[in-house]
């Protein structure tokens, strides 16, 4: 196997045993990127020279602890000092932060090496990465299809073996959905588990940083590094982070698995429902107890989400006014014109749509009927999960209603695109952890299984995911990508 095909833990072993150097790994990665990225288009910015320099530093020091010497990619909303951070938007096309996101800093402290910044839907708003101001990313399993979004670049890059792992963010499904579409493992931890400092905000009460990887073990390893309290983020949980890799013993006898009937409705493709049902049988085989449950308010999660998220986004994106950084319309004659024209020219349609939706939901006369109502419904959704988790350890469901759709297919009707999130959004509304792991294929396109856990119980998700993964071989399958 080529170096670029290996998992993080495989690379760790090779480095520790001095079989390869970090420089060789980084060179292998960039050779791969050079070969496939003009097809996949996962990267916005590449940092090859810096990466090679860092690799050489690690090799010279000769210490290979943790993820030292291992390359990674970051969704382009993680602030990286000295490196362009665009958020997939014309508004920040030239923005270079002087401060670092905490998640990145923790990886850097362990001498993880940044290979580049990954494409995304503009300001994390979208489910296909087609909303990027720059270009669309393609699904490595079928280059005419979307990789999902908004962390499309992050998922595609891992799927195409361009980086061994990446970080993304998930507000309504933006890690799990692309992971599902691209056949990789994507984990969104509990809200508050990973610091949001230095992560350009979309919806503050929903955004969460997560990991996209080739297998469950890698995911657990990286999550342990980036998770944990950060004094710079008031919403970050002051809780210890368990060693997630230590939970991976494959023993899930007696594990109580619930599957919610509402997630298996007519809106979900039959092939996907079948794959999940097969996975549930596998769980029973492995000794788990599987039962159907109801999350009665499920159908209300998406409409509530499309009020809460845009409302928060409308405030979070108001700072993009051309004054202190970012794009500015220099022709504007006065300040008001500068604001409106900067924001008209700097933002794409989907961003404008959501800002206006959110502004409307908060505006005088509509606040109670829309925003406040949505927050109340949010509590009902969270309560549904709490009730189920009294008697169960994890919830299993499909991640997406369909497999990856064709590029260009869903533009035109915003609601159709929003429906992609219907199975992932409830988890963000409740603030719970959720993972997507490959569990089959439909006509050559990956299917993802979603595993939802109790608050701060990522460990059980990892455990359950690992047990399933090791009893199948989906995690070893790779897209052909039309290259040898």
């Amino acid at each position, binding site marked *: 196997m080529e170096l670029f095909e290996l998992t993080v833990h495989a690379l760790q072993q090779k480095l520790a045993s001095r079989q390869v150097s970090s420089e060789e790994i980084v060179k292998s990665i960039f050779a791969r990127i050079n070969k496939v990225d003009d097809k996949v288009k996962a990267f916005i910015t590449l940092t090859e020279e810096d990466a090679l320099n860092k690799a050489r530093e690690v090799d010279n020091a000769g210490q290979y602890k943790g993820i030292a010497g291992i390359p990674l990619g970051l969704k382009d909303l993680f*602030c990286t000092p000295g490196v362009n951070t665009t958020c997939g938007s014309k508004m*920040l096309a030239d923005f270079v932060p002087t401060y670092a996101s905490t998640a990145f800093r923790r990886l850097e402290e362990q001498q993880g090496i940044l290979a580049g910044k990954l494409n995304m839907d503009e300001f994390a708003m979208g489910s296909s990465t087609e909303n990027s101001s720059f270009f669309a990313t393609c699904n490595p399993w079928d280059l005419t299809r979307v990789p999902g979004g908004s962390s499309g670049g992050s998922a595609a890059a891992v799927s195409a073996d361009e980086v061994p792992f990446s970080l993304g963010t998930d507000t309504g499904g933006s890690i799990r959905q692309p992971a599902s579409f691209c056949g990789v493992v994507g984990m969104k931890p509990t809200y508050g588990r990973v610091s949001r400092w230095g992560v350009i905000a979309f919806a503050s009460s929903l955004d969460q940083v997560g990991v996209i990887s080739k297998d469950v073990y890698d995911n657990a390893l990286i999550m342990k590094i980036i998770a944990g309290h950060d004094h710079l983020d*008031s*919403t970050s949980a002051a809780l210890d982070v368990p060693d997630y890799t230590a939970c991976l013993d494959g023993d899930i006898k007696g594990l109580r698995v619930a599957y919610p009937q509402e997630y298996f409705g007519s809106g979900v493709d039959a092939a996907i429902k079948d794959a999940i049902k097969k996975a549930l049988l596998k769980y029973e085989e492995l000794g788990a107890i599987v039962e159907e449950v109801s999350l009665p308010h499920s159908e209300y999660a998406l409409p509530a989400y499309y009020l809460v998220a845009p*409302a*928060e986004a409308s*405030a979070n994106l108001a700072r993009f006014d051309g*004054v202190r950084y970012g794009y500015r319309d220099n022709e504007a004659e006065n300040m008001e014109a500068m604001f409106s024209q900067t924001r008209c020219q700097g933002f794409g349609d989907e961003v404008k749509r959501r800002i206006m939706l959110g502004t409307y939901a908060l505006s*005088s006369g509509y*606040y109670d009927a829309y925003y406040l109502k949505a927050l109340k419904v949010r509590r009902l959704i969270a309560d549904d999960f709490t009730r189920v988790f009294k008697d169960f350890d994890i919830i299993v469901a499909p991640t997406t209603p369909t497999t990856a759709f064709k590029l260009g297919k869903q533009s035109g009707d915003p609601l159709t695109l929003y429906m992609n999130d219907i199975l992932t959004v409830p988890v963000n509304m409740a603030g719970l952890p959720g993972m997507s792991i490959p569990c089959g294929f439909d006509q050559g396109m990956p299917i993802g299984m979603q595993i939802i856990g109790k608050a701060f119980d990522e460990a059980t998700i990892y455990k359950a995911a690992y047990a399933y993964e090791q009893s199948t071989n989906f995690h070893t399958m790779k897209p052909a990508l039309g290259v040898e």
Partner: protein
Amino acid sequence: MSKDYEVVIGLEVHAELKTQTKIFCSCSTAFGAEPNTQTCPICAGFPGVLPVLNKKVVDLAITTGLALNCEIPNICKFDRKNYFYPDSPKAYQISQFDMPICINGYLDIDVEGRRKRIGINRVHMEEDAGKLVHQGDITTTPFSLVDLNRCGIPLLEIVSEPDMRSAQEARAYMEKLRAMLLFAGVSDCKMQEGSLRCDANVSVRPIGQVEFGTRTEIKNLNSFRALERAIEYEAARHIEAIKGGETLVQETRTWDEEKQLTRSMRSKEEAHDYRYFPEPDLLPLKISQEWVNSIRAAFPEMPEQAQKRLVEEYGLPEYDAQILTLTPDSLAFFDQCLKQYPDAKTISNWMMGEFNRLLNQNNMEIGESKVTAAGLVQMLKSIDDGTISGKMAKMVLEEMFATGNCPEVIIREKGLVQISDEGTLLTLIDDIIKTNPKVVEDYKSGKEKAFGFFAGQIMKATQGQANPTLVNKLLKDRLNHIQ
């Protein structure tokens, strides 16, 4: 004011809190720094940043609530107040909307001998905005410059009930509020520096009417005097408009200090839709009874308490007590003197008299002057032990004020030691008597003025340094012994 109408006033006061750092980041709050040298990505609203609340701000807010007799609910939260302006980098201000930290308080004021209670509706925490600098007037400037140093400085907004009925009451409320905030140690309340700001809400209604009239808000009040004048002007404007059958517009107006009138602040959207919603980046605040109690226990002495103490324990007249407790610095100075010198009234006389005169003349606060409590006490003791006379002490105090030197040094260097040696004085007295026989005759025939002449001559001959009490005694003695 008009006999038929009453004016209704409510005041909204913003006080900058005395913290070292800003409310949501660790930038310094020091006044007077070069533009944009006290900003960071957080207070400058950069992408990806998050606020973290400064605990001291909450401590000071609770302190203020206690000083203003407020209820402190056991839970409160922050909200985003959304509006666009270049001095507001996030395009929202983090403030408190429906669950402020303090509610339902009051302040008692004294106006023309009457005591009146003014309700305080709420006190809440929020962050300040930056500063916009125009090239000349806001309407003619070709561009503006933004300085964000002030952005993020913690503010308390204190909203009164519309309980005031005259400009005098409004002023009394502001003066009392300012004193409370100073004594509570929460703000340095300098209106000229902007650490205390006041907006007035004014309306009028026919006497007897229950409904409030149309309200206008007046901004840009930079002194208590401006507050009084603006309220009087605005109330008169309202009454005139009503009498003339005009409809009053609910609007924001600015006080023009130069022209002594209010002007409408032209703006496209009069009613801002702030679209308040709970701040998701900050957690709710639970204010426990223990926390409030611990602040109450450490509460500094407030002016009314101090006045009571000065009157009851030290026998000072109420008037003195009020003057001495106008500022915490003044009270502290007085108390410090009292530790080393037991005569409270003497200290008070000098502080209210000569010392205050010097401070006013030089436009200084007591804390800014070079005179120390120890210095003043030394000066008083020098009078007591006869080293200097009361009159000379005035000169000594002026020197202390100007140079910061202690009385001992000044007395020595200027040779101001009082002449109290009987021998020396008698020699002088005998001399003056001998050379003025006619005046002696005048004195003997009952002309009191003659005595003053002699005394004056002695003082002249000694450049005012003769001990006046002793001079009087010796002179009288000598004159009475002449046949």
